[in-house]
């Protein structure tokens, strides 16, 4: 659905069900340069099982009006504005990669609005490889190829998508390429690289959190994910074997099961 946040048009997938402000809300936040499409194997389930879902396209991504927001702190505030704009008092957040940093910021800045946070491939900081950052900021599509290479574990490189017929790396790459490498991916990578407040934000979070990690993740290694979880008071860690950074797609079934259990416990639907 399309709606306005701070007078700018925003697109969010509602998981195939009409948005219902009476149901508990889950906001899904995608990773760098990506879009709501990455969440399709989680959002539809929750939308059909008692929740209202907003898998948002961050500003300047997917079908949301730009420009992209340049800092994680501001992106965190923007998520709170999203929740306000749909007139809901509190929501659970689910983030992937950069989306985890945004969820951390939002939950630390607006603790009253956030019921629980589910992280996939979450770390307290995501310093960027300088060459990759430079390529992305120049709009070079090679940045996308490198990102897709590093982001995917064995399933991404060999195959075995949870949805028959889909190709991990080409699908992920096309989501980024269909947007703007320079104005979305480049801005996102710079925002990640600049962000230093992850562990401080984590210490302020009181709501329950889960960090779902892939043991073959080269972008947010499990040590970094565990370190982040150690800084969140009420957190748990789940590790998925043979999985890279694209946990939400590479192991969509396992990650959905973990998320179902976590959200149903901490933010139950009627």
């Amino acid at each position, binding site marked *: 659905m399309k709606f306005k946040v701070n007078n700018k048009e925003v697109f969010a997938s509602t998981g195939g069900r*009409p948005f219902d402000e009476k149901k508990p809300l889950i906001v899904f936040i995608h990773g760098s340069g990506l879009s709501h499409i990455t969440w399709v*194997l989680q959002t539809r389930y929750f939308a059909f099982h008692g929740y209202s879902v907003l898998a948002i396209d961050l500003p300047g991504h997917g079908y949301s009006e730009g420009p992209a927001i340049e800092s994680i702190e501001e992106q965190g505030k923007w998520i709170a504005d999203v929740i306000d704009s749909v007139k809901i008092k509190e929501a659970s957040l689910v983030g992937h990669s950069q989306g985890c940093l945004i969820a951390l910021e939002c939950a630390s800045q607006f603790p009253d609005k956030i019921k629980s946070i589910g992280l996939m491939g979450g770390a307290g900081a995501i310093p960027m*490889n300088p060459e990759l950052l430079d390529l992305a900021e120049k709009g070079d599509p090679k940045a996308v190829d490198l990102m*897709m290479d590093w982001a995917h574990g064995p399933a991404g490189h060999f195959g075995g998508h949870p949805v028959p017929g889909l190709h991990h790396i080409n699908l992920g790459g*096309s989501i980024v390429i269909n947007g703007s490498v320079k104005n979305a991916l480049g801005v996102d990578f710079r925002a990640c690289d600049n962000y230093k407040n992850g562990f401080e934000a984590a210490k302020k979070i009181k709501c329950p959190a889960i960090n779902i990690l892939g043991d073959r993740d080269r972008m947010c290694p499990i040590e970094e994910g565990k370190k982040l979880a150690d800084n969140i008071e009420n957190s748990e860690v789940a590790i998925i074997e043979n999985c890279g950074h694209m946990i939400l797609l590479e192991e969509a079934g396992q990650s959905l099961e973990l998320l179902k259990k976590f959200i149903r416990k901490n933010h139950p639907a009627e």
Partner: protein
Amino acid sequence: MDPKTYKFDTLSLHAGYMPSKNAGSRQVPIYQTTSYMFDDVDHAAALFNLERGGHIYSRISNPTVQVLEERVAALEGGTAALATASGMSAIFLTIMTLCNAGDHVVVSSQLYGGTVNLFRLTLPKFGINATFVKPRDTEGFKNAIQENTKCIYGELVGNPGNELMNLPEISKMAHDAGIPVVIDSTYQTPYLFKPLENGADFVVHSLTKWMAGHGSSMAGILVEGGKFDFLKTDKFPTMTEPYEGYHGLSFAEEFGPVAFTMKARAEGMRDMGPCLSPQNAWNVLQGIETLSVRMEKHCSNALKMVEYLSNHESVAWVSHASLKDNPDYELAKKLLPKGTGSMIAFGIKGGKEAGAAFIDNVKLASHLANVGDTRTLVIHPASATHSQMDEATLKLANMSHDMIRLSVGIEDIEDIINDFEDGFRAAKKPKLVANK
């Protein structure tokens, strides 16, 4: 710093399959099953509602077939693929997913005869009509686009005349008009040409041909490029508006770069059911493992046959884009740097009778209705593959009655040439042969 993603030959052998998820089996297992166990009622409901991925019933998907789909998607650079029982069913599925009754398509006039009949005779029964345009008439494609046109369809190198479409130019015109381009790339395989990197939005193949390569198994596939944005136009409401069949699902909104494949599978395979058997999928996978090696030999043999035929006294003309005097020579050099393929069309002096004598007297070359076998194949299209076309359609396809279609195999070239010599010798005395 370069990405370390696997390259073409490696993908031909490995893409789509992980032994660790299949009991360590190095070879792809053949999942000879109709259906798949659900974990519980919730799991079943989620699968049926596209809330999660997985297999339900082999008409919709099958793990062996899935390996083939991912492998071809990997080789073509596609976001997704959907394998079907034959190339024709892949084409039918693609058009039926894109079009509704009242829609129109712009189609190259040089296509496999079965495809011509699909567009000329069968699709009009469903209210989908076509305008045929000669493949070299680039502007003609643009001029044929109507308000209700839903795609441009063609073969890069047309069957059987071997004339090229200027795909990059035609794609620009299509995209300016808000419609996608569908290319049948059977003749090229992704080894020679990747339509998705040259403007096409969807690729279809008869995998029966060079991809499988051994003349053993029927199979087809649809590959999605992931770049055509259905939400940027109002021409495709069945892709963008809520679909009753899945509780109001908008395929384009939910699935973006794989929306078309998701709809073709969820709706098309459900309702039409042209599923590929796991055994045939496995056979095609065997072929794809050696695609590069075979295509190299196909192409090198084809070049030698082009040279041989071009200098033969019994040959009136030869059509192959590798020839410098061919109108498509420059375009082919640009689009097909690894080779222009192993299909050759040539005219035999003495017309239809000489052609019949030639075909009846070659022994090594097989006279049959197929192309892309490892073995050399010949046919007289006007009396076989394209015989159901009327004179006007044959003319539009630039087909003459003296035309022989040759699919060059990977035998020793000297043996193919010796065989052709026997054929040409007999063709010089067609009446004698006809009376034998």
